[in-house]
């Protein structure tokens, strides 16, 4: 059995209760923090752990914290990104609904390191029932002296609040999230300036993902070296992988980074193989925004080495033959899956979710959706395939925020790896998979 950091106690009954969490050693990292660490030392410890952001981009967490502008006398903010809207991703919900105190403890650690007095958890509006679980846990943390004035007799005070979104994938992008938290439309900001300098209410701000923050208590309790000893050279620690699609056991799994993809898909400890004994066709390994890979390239790299669940192994081969770890949303497709229809659902998604600020994204996502719908309904022409590639290429890299890239990559990669299937769909004027 792999080591569990995030999900170690997840099956304990009533873990959402403060006392249950506390009796399992909860909030000892906060006590240790006050005794052993100054804020800067805590940031150093997180740097040494090698923890990378789990929201999708994999940016080193301690380094991100060290960019926070501490020279101004403006207040600073720490914001938890609980937007969790990347298709295929459902790991943060798992933590939020089953172990909210782990997230709150992580928020206290991060806020202290950053010198923050007010912090927010921004959670997608659809997950209101999880917001209520977290709000109840926050109330308990206040009652037990872990939030509020002079926490546990220290001179440190922190207020923590939960804020709902209202249905907009783009609010997961950190500057759109900050706009939304200010009560505005979720339009991403032009960067620079980065939130570390100009963030919430124009003040220095750090935004981190739920899983990133929930990893902090273990790191402080067990030490940066212990965390860095898990995983691979460039991918330290454990990662939650939310696995879905045509597997026997969909669910949220904690893996030590570096686990072979083949073991993850086929072993009973994880996905338990493909449903009905079908053949694996393709995997989207890191949430819908990362390139799709056919079975042979997700199990082995183009060099013939086993593909591992780590940042560097999934990136091996670049976009020609590789992909990305992303958010860890692992979508598995068996050999009954139509690649045209599958891609159409994502194209529709990005079109629906484009905030509309930049024309390449606003128009391009709509064009890609329309062309794919044309092909799907049997009215496509061969020229449409290259047209899709052309549009994707012109959206990518030409937009304010990475949603444009996220919309382009699935299209480009599906055609790169499954071109014949698109051609066949056009020739037959229908789907070979529809019964």
């Amino acid at each position, binding site marked *: 059995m792999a080591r569990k950091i995030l999900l170690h106690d997840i099956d304990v009954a009533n873990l959402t209760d403060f006392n249950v969490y506390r009796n399992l050693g909860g909030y000892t990292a906060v006590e240790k923090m006050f005794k052993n660490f100054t804020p800067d030392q805590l940031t150093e410890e997180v740097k040494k752990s090698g923890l990378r952001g789990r929201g999708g981009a994999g940016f080193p967490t301690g380094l991100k914290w060290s960019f926070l502008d501490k020279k101004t006398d403006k207040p600073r903010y720490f914001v938890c990104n609980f937007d969790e809207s990347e298709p295929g991703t459902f790991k943060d919900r798992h933590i939020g609904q089953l172990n909210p105190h782990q997230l709150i403890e992580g928020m206290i650690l991060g806020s202290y390191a950053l010198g923050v007095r007010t912090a927010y958890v921004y959670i997608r509006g659809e997950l*209101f029932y999880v917001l209520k679980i977290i709000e109840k846990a926050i109330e308990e943390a206040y009652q037990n002296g872990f939030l509020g004035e002079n926490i546990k007799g220290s001179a440190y005070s922190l207020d923590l609040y939960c804020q709902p979104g209202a249905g907009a*994938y783009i609010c997961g992008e950190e500057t759109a999230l900050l706009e939304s938290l200010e*009560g505005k439309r979720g339009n991403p900001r032009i960067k620079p300036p980065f939130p570390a300098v100009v963030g919430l209410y124009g003040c220095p701000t750090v935004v981190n993902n739920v899983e990133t923050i929930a990893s902090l208590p273990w790191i402080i309790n067990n030490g940066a070296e212990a965390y860095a000893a898990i995983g691979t050279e460039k991918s330290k620690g454990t990662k939650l992988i939310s*696995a879905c699609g045509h597997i026997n056991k969909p669910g949220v799994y904690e893996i030590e980074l570096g686990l072979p993809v083949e073991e993850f898909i086929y072993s009973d400890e994880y996905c338990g193989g493909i449903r009905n004994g079908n053949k694996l066709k393709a995997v989207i390994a890191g949430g819908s925004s990362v390139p799709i890979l056919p079975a042979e390239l997700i199990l082995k790299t183009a060099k013939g080495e086993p593909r591992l669940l780590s940042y560097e192994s999934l990136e091996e081969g670049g976009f020609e033959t590789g992909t990305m770890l992303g958010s860890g*949303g692992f*979508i598995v497709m068996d050999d009954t*899956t139509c690649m045209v229809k599958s891609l159409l659902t994502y194209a529709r998604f990005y079109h629906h979710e484009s905030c509309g600020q930049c024309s390449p994204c606003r128009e391009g996502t709509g064009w890609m959706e329309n062309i794919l719908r044309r092909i799907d309904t049997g009215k496509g022409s061969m020229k449409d395939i290259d047209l899709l590639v052309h549009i994707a290429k012109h959206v990518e890299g030409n937009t304010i925020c990475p949603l444009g890239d996220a919309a382009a990559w699935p299209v480009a990669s599906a055609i790169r790896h499954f071109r014949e299937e698109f051609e066949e769909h056009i020739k037959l004027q229908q789907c070979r998979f529809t019964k």
Partner: protein
Amino acid sequence: MQEKQNISAFKSETIELVNKIINRYPEGRQKSALLPILHIAQAENNGWLSTGIMDYVALLLNLQPIEVYEVATFYSMFNLEPVGNCVIEVCQTGPCWLKGSDEILAHFEKRLGIKPGETTEDGKFTLKTVECLAACGNAPVIQVGTDYHENLTTEKVDELIEKWKAENKVSHSNPYL
């Protein structure tokens, strides 16, 4: 303007909740309360945001009405037209599609006799399609109010519809309560 007069103010408990939420933000940043308050306003206004209720929210938060409209039109959870008592939101994105969300949607359409975006004539049900609800491991998934219903089958859909009909299901209620 005329509509404004028809809007009854929130109940005093709701006003208390609104003030509690406004206090979460720094002085002068009460606009941050807009999304939470719109959720509450929608729930208290039969599940949708009329111009009148949005003007009232603008008044409460000391904003220009346009600042409320531009936000309400951006977020997909806000309904800008009247809806039925029970709003059924069917997830359609890739992972749910892989597990048969098309059949689930078709079954709802057949059972209720409406298409996505429509409301039944008796005003009881509205059908909507939505994008990924972050529950893909239990696909196919629908959301009704704040409840998720996961691992759906057509049989489960039948049971749910019967249950909702029997209890005259209303899906919008103040999500904070």
